[in-house]
């Protein structure tokens, strides 16, 4: 056991740090400063900013760190990917865009795609010239992905697709989407699904944006009306798309970046607690809050080392897919408690939204309180499903659903 990093890894860390120190100077003044007015996350200005930053990361070779070199990646280890995520979070730097493309579509194409698909798609994923969305779940099939109803019928060299996908992330601005469709309605549920690459600009694709309850309005519903998708866009074997989608994606499972993000949140809270007095005493000395604060730190540290243990398993080539859910469930529910704690600390100010006079940190805590109810326990895979997987595939209990 050794928590020290190898000289090569340390060198990489130094490289990242050096690059960040150099390049973060160019970030706009509002970045990471809730007190300085900046553009909305949904605005064109913000979009322009994030593509500018992505390009810098890309040019420096920090996009697709663990992707093979032959596909434009750095060909580095998952440790280096984890290190990079950690440093990014530690420095509170913006990350790359095209998250679905880099983290999901790309690795799937690398693992199961044709040579043509690799050549056609991979370079533009890393460069973010083409943005990807994920169109798996449907209004009637969320937790139970095998229940999708969107149909694809073969017609000559194409699949003709009809159906509806929801929610599909930032589909409005996507050029391509990874898509699950039913190609054999008579087969057992899991065995009649295919995995396609969908041109979002194709005729018959209609995108309707909607808002989440935290105000994020970048998410979409996608309607597919006789959309023709060439058979060359099939990934893996026909009717085995469910297994392509569930297949081991070698994304880094340490969650180290997220853990550092939590540390940042806690450190920000400590600052707030130190400068806020109640009954003539800073909140940081309030014994009740201290217990809660410490508990959040403890959970953060526990998750950090759970993540590193998971990463070690991954590096050894062990199958960590089901086991990673141990950390994911904890992280999902833990961040909700942390955000609830954060907003309780600021008392009545917790009600004030972005743009309001007197809003603490321009409503940051309110927004993140709301956001914590989405992805952490639902959007990133419902905790109920994750617990099912832990019970069945980690503990070997019988199926419970």
């Amino acid at each position: 056991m050794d928590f020290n990093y190898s000289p090569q890894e340390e060198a990489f860390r130094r490289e990242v740090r050096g690059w960040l120190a150099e390049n973060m100077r160019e970030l706009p003044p509002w970045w990471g400063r809730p007190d300085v007015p900046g553009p909305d996350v949904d605005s064109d200005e913000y979009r322009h900013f994030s593509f500018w930053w992505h390009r810098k990361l890309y040019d420096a070779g920090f996009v697709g760190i663990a992707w093979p070199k032959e596909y434009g990646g750095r060909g580095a280890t998952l440790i280096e990917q984890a290190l990079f995520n950690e440093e990014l979070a530690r420095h509170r730097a913006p990350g790359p865009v095209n998250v679905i493309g880099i983290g999901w579509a790309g690795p799937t194409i690398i693992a199961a795609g044709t040579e043509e698909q690799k050549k056609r798609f991979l370079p533009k994923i890393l460069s973010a010239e083409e943005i990807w969305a994920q169109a798996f779940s449907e209004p009637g099939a969320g937790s139970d992905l095998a229940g999708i109803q969107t149909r694809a019928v073969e017609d000559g060299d194409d699949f003709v697709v009809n159906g509806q996908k929801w929610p599909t992330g930032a589909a409005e601005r996507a050029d391509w989407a990874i898509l699950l469709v039913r190609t054999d309605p008579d087969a057992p549920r899991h065995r009649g699904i295919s995995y396609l690459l969908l041109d979002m600009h194709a005729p018959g694709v209609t995108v309707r944006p909607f808002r989440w309850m935290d105000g994020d309005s970048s998410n979409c519903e996608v309607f597919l009306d006789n959309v023709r998708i060439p058979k060359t866009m099939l990934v893996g074997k026909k009717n085995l798309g469910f297994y392509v989608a569930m297949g081991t994606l070698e994304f880094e499972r340490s969650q180290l970046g997220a853990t550092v993000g939590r540390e940042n949140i806690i450190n920000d809270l400590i600052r707030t607690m130190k400068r806020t007095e109640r009954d003539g005493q800073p909140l940081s000395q309030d014994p009740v809050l201290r217990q809660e604060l410490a508990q959040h730190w403890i959970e953060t540290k526990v998750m950090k080392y759970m993540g590193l243990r998971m990463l070690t398993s991954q590096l050894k080539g062990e199958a960590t897919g089901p086991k990673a859910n141990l950390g994911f469930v904890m992280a999902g529910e833990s961040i909700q408690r942390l955000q609830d704690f954060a907003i309780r600390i600021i008392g009545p100010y917790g009600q004030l939204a972005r743009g309001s006079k007197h809003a603490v940190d321009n409503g940051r805590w309110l927004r993140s309180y709301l956001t914590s109810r989405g992805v952490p326990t639902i959007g990133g895979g419902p905790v109920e499903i994750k617990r099912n997987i832990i019970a069945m595939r980690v503990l070997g209990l019988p199926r419970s659903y």
Partner: protein
Amino acid sequence: MNFSLNEEQVMLKTSARNFLEKECPKRLVREMAANKQGYSPELWKKLAELGWMGLVFPEEYGGVGSTFLDLTVVLEEMGRVLVPGPFVPTVVLAGRPILAAGTEQQKRRLIPGIANGSIIATLAFLEAGGELAASAINVRGTTHGEDFIIDGTKLFVPDAHVADYILCVIRTGDGVSKEEGVTLLLVDAKTVGIHTEVLKTLTGEKLCEVVFSNVMVPRGNILGVLGNGWQIVQRILDEAAVAECAWMTGGAQWILETTVNYARERLAFGQPIGSFQAVAHRCANMAIEVEGAISITQYAAWAISENDPEASAAASVAKAWCSEMYKHVAGDGIQVHGATGFTWDHDLNLYFKRAKTSEIAFGDGRYHRERVAAYITGEGN
């Protein structure tokens, strides 16, 4: 011992339910959140015609002469559909203390108007520190002949922008304890020197910053006794806490019913999701918390109606419980609904947000637990 609504209360509840389902759809709630005024004058008028504003005031002042408990029956239904507007500020935060502590003249001047819906009123209490303690009252009222001059800033004042009267909690003196020297002053909202700005909130509820610059208020507008206002404030807070509990309990029941219906109908893996214990037991836990909330809130409302010596402790017990309950139930409701429940368009999020503001209003769980601890140990902290 009979722990159930009486016949009139059941009728009141039923008619309120029917009326509000028709007159206060979620469309209105969403509109009013975005609307500057924050309430519908037509609906306000109808509520007045139904006698709801006058419910807890004696007939001699134009009221209906019902009890505080009867009021909470209506509040529960209002909370169920999230009626927007200054009902609680007008009736509970201002009207009730005027009735309890006002002079005959003050009562005659204000309560009939409150009862018939022509007067909107509110309470200006919190300041920059955001604390409910007497020590946090620092807006000053200084004597100037027959007037007081008020200077300072109040925060989080509900509906001050549409209020005709603002009941202000100010400091007029410094005693041995911080409780001494607190005075309640009835201020005409149109008095020169008052500047109101609506803050942007989570729910669209209209909480205001109210700045008093050299505001002159006649001495005759003192509510109760000069420097002795803290006792009245405490009673206001108790009643407001229980009113908020009724509101929360109504909303939580809507969430529970909506979530159970969803769990019955939504399919996954070929079965209704309610047939999975992860969902079924979550719903059971919600039901337990809600049943507890209904029970403790009704008790606290009864205790206030009866001036029971335990009323204040009961209010804290109820508010501590309901604050956590509403938040849990709203969160569980979203979790059971999955992504659907997390959308802006689904009504659940209105409740989830309201659960947070209701938790904060009139003291959160921690605040009331400390009050309960003081009560049961007989020791402050």
